[in-house]
């Protein structure tokens, strides 16, 4: 590949570390930053350096924060008896948007993925167990994804947490709110039928 210089080469190579960015996109980004938006590039440089220097994982919930314990965990007006386990910070934002949950969180920053070699050690199960056994947690809500990997993660965590005497629950799955059976995918419908619950008044 012919290129203007090795510095440019290095930049495109570096940009490829981003998920979903191949050689073409990386080149496009590099040209854009250098030619069209040098200010943007400066800003990117600064904020990246800042983030790398100041952001760390919260001691309590493992999410990104600048302090030892993040704002949400230290706020004091959350229900410390509930701990909701999620795969990613994006999941946590979504959870907060529901305004339906007042407890605390733990973000795994991943999920078990046996074929990729990601096991309990790679995810840091022991840190979650430690967090959940801090004395104030009564119920752990497993809210990992309903993918095969998310389910496997929930199962493994469930076993470990129950062994510690904690109450463990799993978020429900089924027909979405406002869902019409005619338009729901068959897999979801089949599972909703299998996991049906007694009708209450």
């Amino acid at each position, binding site marked *: 590949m012919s290129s203007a210089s090795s510095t440019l080469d290095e930049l495109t190579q570096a940009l490829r570390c981003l998920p979903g960015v191949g050689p073409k996109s990386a080149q496009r980004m590099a040209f854009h930053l250098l030619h069209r938006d040098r200010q943007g590039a400066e800003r990117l440089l600064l904020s990246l350096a800042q983030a790398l220097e100041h952001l760390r994982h919260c001691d309590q919930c493992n999410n990104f924060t600048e302090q030892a314990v993040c704002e949400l965990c230290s706020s004091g007006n959350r229900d410390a008896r509930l701990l909701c386990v999620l795969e990613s910070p994006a999941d946590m934002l979504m959870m907060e948007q529901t305004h339906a949950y007042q407890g605390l969180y733990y973000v795994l920053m991943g999920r078990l993925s046996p074929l990729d070699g990601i096991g309990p*050690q790679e995810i840091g199960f022991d840190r979650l167990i430690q967090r959940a056994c801090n004395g104030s947690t009564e119920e752990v809500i497993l809210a990992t994804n309903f993918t095969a990997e998310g389910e496997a993660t929930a199962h493994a965590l469930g076993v470990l947490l129950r062994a510690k005497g904690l109450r463990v629950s799993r978020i429900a799955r089924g027909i979405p709110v406002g869902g019409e059976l005619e338009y729901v995918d068959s*897999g979801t419908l089949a599972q909703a039928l299998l996991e049906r619950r007694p009708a209450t008044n």
Partner: protein
Amino acid sequence: MTSERSIVYQEEAFVLHGIPWKETSMIVEVLTAHHGRVPLVAKGVRRPRSALRGLLQPFQPLMINWFGQGELRTLRTAEWQGGIPLLQGHALFCGFYLNELLMLLLKRDDPHEALFLEYKQALKKLTHVELFEPVLRVFELALLRELGYAPSLEHEVVSGEPVDPHRTYRFDPENGAVQWNGSTGPDVVKFKGKTLLDMAKSNYDDPGTLAQGKQLMRILLSHQLGHQDLHSRRIIQELLLS
């Protein structure tokens, strides 16, 4: 490359593994009855409103169409077939183990219809049996047999005589059962003739067969896998120990 390879209609398939690819796509390795293991690009499948999002999960029978001529072909449609409940709990980890074996041992585009049926059967059993190990052993042996890596369990190599259930044998992964000559040592693993015969009939009712069968399959599999480690096996062990 033949033209009939360019489009495949209505093929039953299971997703073995998926990895994110580019911004919104995924590369899935599927197991099919008539085309073996095939890598497919599922374009746009990671978009929030993609119809296939959530469908390309392992352990669920799908009916798929694909096209393309290179090694990496393109998934066109996938329909959920149903008939196998979602694997739950420990069965899920067993499922991952089966998938990993297939990913490591089965070459791409090497069709084995019988193996596909064995896989489907194993998944079905994993959804309801209490003992998972016999299901795993039966599948492991079927996999090695189908790929031509499993020596006979019913005949002694040197003499060609049928294996005697009351005699003791060693097992050479390349050749098969050899009558045990009384030698001992760390490398000498002995098997009862009955174990070998039970395994040949997929009968694991005897706990002794189950224990020795696991040992034998471990030897046969690691002979084929060489230095490659099975991640899923390690992870299952880590979880059992923690």
